[in-house]
C-alpha cells in the first residue's frame, strides 16, 4: 500500500507549498485543515496493512490526529480570525514569490537530505523522510516570513506536521499514551495561542506581531 501512502505524502507537501502561495488567512487555515486530513490518513495507509498487533493504536492515532489537526485546531483558528476581525491578507515580510521560491528550493534540499541520511532500518516508503523534512522546512518559511499571528501558528502547525510524519518511522516504539500527550499539547497550545491572539487584537487592534517589539534592551 505504499502507493496510497506516497500519494498522501505528496498531497501534504503540495498543501504546504500552497499555504506559502496563498495570501488569505482563511484559506491558509483551510489548507492546513486539509493537510491535517491527509496526515491523519497516513498512519492507516502506512501501517494498516502490515501490522496486526498494533491495529487499535494506529486507528486511534489516526482518529486523534483527525480530530485535533483537521477539526479542532482549524475551528479554533478561524474563530480567532473572526473575533480579531483582521484584514484577511497574510502580509508577508518577504514577498510571496520569493518565499515560494525559497520553499521550493527547500523541498529540493529535503530530497537530497533524505538521500544523504541513511536510516538504520529502511523507512516504509522512500518518500517518508524527504516529505517530512520538506513539510518541516516549509513550515519554518511560513513561520519566519509572515507577520500575522495566525499565519505564524499555521507555520508552527506545519512544523509539527513534519515531525509527525517523521515520527511514523517509529510507530512501534512510541507508546500510545505519549502520542496522545503530544496531540493534547498541540491542541492546548493552539488554544492558548488563540486566546493570546484574541488579546493582541483587542489590545492593539491588529495582530501584526511586528509591532510586538517594545521589549528590548
Amino acid at each position, binding site marked *: 500500500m505504499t502507493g496510497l501512502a506516497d500519494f498522501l505524502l505528496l498531497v501534504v507537501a503540495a498543501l504546504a507549498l500552497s499555504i506559502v502561495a496563498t495570501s488569505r488567512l482563511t484559506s491558509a487555515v483551510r489548507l492546513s485543515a486539509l493537510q491535517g486530513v491527509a496526515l491523519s490518513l497516513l498512519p492507516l495507509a502506512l501501517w494498516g496493512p502490515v501490522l496486526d498487533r498494533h491495529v487499535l493504536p494506529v486507528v486511534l492515532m489516526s482518529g486523534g490526529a483527525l480530530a485535533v489537526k483537521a477539526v479542532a485546531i482549524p475551528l479554533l483558528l478561524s474563530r480567532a480570525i473572526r473575533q480579531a476581525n483582521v484584514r484577511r491578507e497574510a502580509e508577508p515580510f518577504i514577498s510571496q514569490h520569493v518565499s515560494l521560491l525559497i520553499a521550493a528550493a527547500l523541498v529540493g534540499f529535503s530530497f537530497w537530505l533524505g538521500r544523504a*541520511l*541513511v*536510516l*538504520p*532500518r529502511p523507512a516504509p516508503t522512500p518518500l517518508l523522510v524527504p516529505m517530512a523534512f520538506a513539510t*518541516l522546512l516549509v513550515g519554518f518559511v511560513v*513561520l519566519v516570513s509572515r507577520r500575522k*499571528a495566525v499565519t*505564524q*501558528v499555521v507555520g*508552527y502547525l506545519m*512544523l*509539527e506536521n513534519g*515531525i509527525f510524519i*517523521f*515520527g511514523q*518511522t*517509529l510507530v*512501534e*516504539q*512510541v*507508546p500510545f*499514551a*505519549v502520542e496522545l*500527550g*503530544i496531540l*493534547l*499539547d498541540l491542541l*492546548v*497550545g493552539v488554544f*492558548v*495561542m488563540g*486566546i*493570546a491572539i484574541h*488579546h*493582541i487584537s483587542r*489590545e*492593539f487592534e491588529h495582530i501584526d*506581531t511586528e509591532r*510586538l*517589539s*517594545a*521589549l528590548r*534592551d
Partner: protein
Amino acid sequence: MTGLLPFLVVLPAATALLALALRGLRAGLAILLGVALLHAAGTAFLWRGEASKSFGTLLQLDVLGLIFLSITSALFLLVSLSTIPYILRGTHDPQAAPHRFAPCLLAFLAAMTLVAVTQNLALMWAAVEGTTLASAPLVYFYRRRGALEAAWKYLLLCSVGIALALLGTFCLGVAASGGPAATAGLTLEAFRGAAPAMARPWLKAAFVLALVGYGTKMGLVPLHTWLPDTHSQAPSPVSALLSGALLNCAFLAILRFFQVCVASGDFAFARTLLVVMGFVSIGVACAFMVGQSDYKRLFAYSSIENMGVVAVGVGIGGTAAYGAVFHSVNHSLCKAGLFLLAGNVLRVFGTTSARKVRGVIARIPLTGILLAALFLAIGGLPPFAPFWSEFLIFQAAFRGPHPWMGVLFLALLAIAFLGMAGTLLPMLQGASGEHAPRAREPLLTVLPPFLLAAAALAIGLYPPPALTDALRRAAVLVGG
C-alpha cells in the same frame, strides 16, 4: 507507597481543575498551599528511599530526577507562601485575573514534576511543552501590552524550539532502531542500552536538536531572547519559579540526551557543544548585564549567565560535572530569592527601572539586606554555596587540557559580578529620595527569601552529607 510518583503528578493536576472550577480567590490559595505542603512532604519521603521509585515504564525516578524534583518542590512551597500577600493586596492592577493564578501554578507544578519523574523521553517532551502552556497565562497576569508581548514571544519561541527537541527525540529513536532494543519504547534505559551500537550521525543530530530545542527553554544563546522579556514582565513569584525551577527542568532534559551520548562512549562532540554554547551564553549575558537599567531584566540575564555556567560545567566533565549539578541547585536558591525580593522592591517603589530606585535599605531594610546577601551569593563570593560550585568548575577547567578556559571563565564571572554590582548597589544605598517613610514589610514577603538565603549560606558552610552524596551519584550519571 508504590503510587507516590503518580500521586505527585496527579495531585497538582487534579487540584488545578478543582481550583479552576471553584474560582474563589481564597479557596484557590488554600488549595495551592495545601498541595504545596503535600507535594513537599511526598518529595521528602522519596529521599528516605522507602518509596517505590518506578511506576510502570512511564514514571521512573533516578537521583538526578530526585534532585531536580526537590528543588522544584521546595521552591514551589516558598513561592506559594509569598503568593498569599502578593495576591491578596499587592497586585495594583484592577485588570489582573487573580483567580487564574492558583490553577495555572498548580498545572505548572504538575508538568514540572512530570519532567523530573519520567525517563520516557517522549513523555518528558510532552511535559516540557506542558510547562510552557501552563505558565504562559501566568506571564500575562498583568493585562499590559508588555506582558502580552512577552507571553506571545514565550509561547511561540518556546513551542517552536521544543518542536525541534521532539524531532531530536525521534532522531534518537531512529538511531536506536538498527539495534535489538528497537521495540523497547523511547525510554532512557533502552536508549542507554542501545547507545554503543547507535548510528552515529543520527545520535549527533539528536543531541544537536535537543540542545538547541531544550536550550531555548533553558535560556541558552542564541534562542534565549524570550527569557529577559518573560522574566521581567511576569509577576515576581512566577519569575522566581520560571528562573529557579523551570530552567532546571530544561537542563534536566538536555542531561537525559547527554546521558545517552555518554553511554555511547563517543561523547566528545557533545561536550564541545556544551562548552561552546555555555561560554557564548555567559558572554552574551555579561554584555547585557553591564549597564542594565531594569533590575528584573538584570536578574533574567544573570539566569542566562548561570545556565551557561552549568552547561560549561557539564561539558568539561569530571569534578566540573559535580559542580554543574551543584550549581544548578545553588542558582535556583539564590535566583528565586532575588526575584521574590525584586517583587518587594517593585511593590514599594512602583518601577522596575533601577535608576528610579534609591535607598532600598533605608526604606525596606529587611528586603535590602537580603538583596545584598543574595547578590553576594549569586556573584560567587564565599562562604555562600555558589562560590563552591563555581570554584569546582573553574578548578576542573584550569587543570584540564585547556587552562585558558578556566581564565576565561573567571574573567566572565568577574564581569557579570561587576555588571550586577553597578546596577544593584546604587539601588540599595542612599536615603530614599522624597523622604518617604519606611514601608511595611509583611512577614510572608521576606520569610521565603530569607529561608532561601539561609539555605544558600548553610549549604556553603556545611553541605549536608545527603546532598553531597546525591550530587556525587548524579555526577556519575552525567560522566563526572
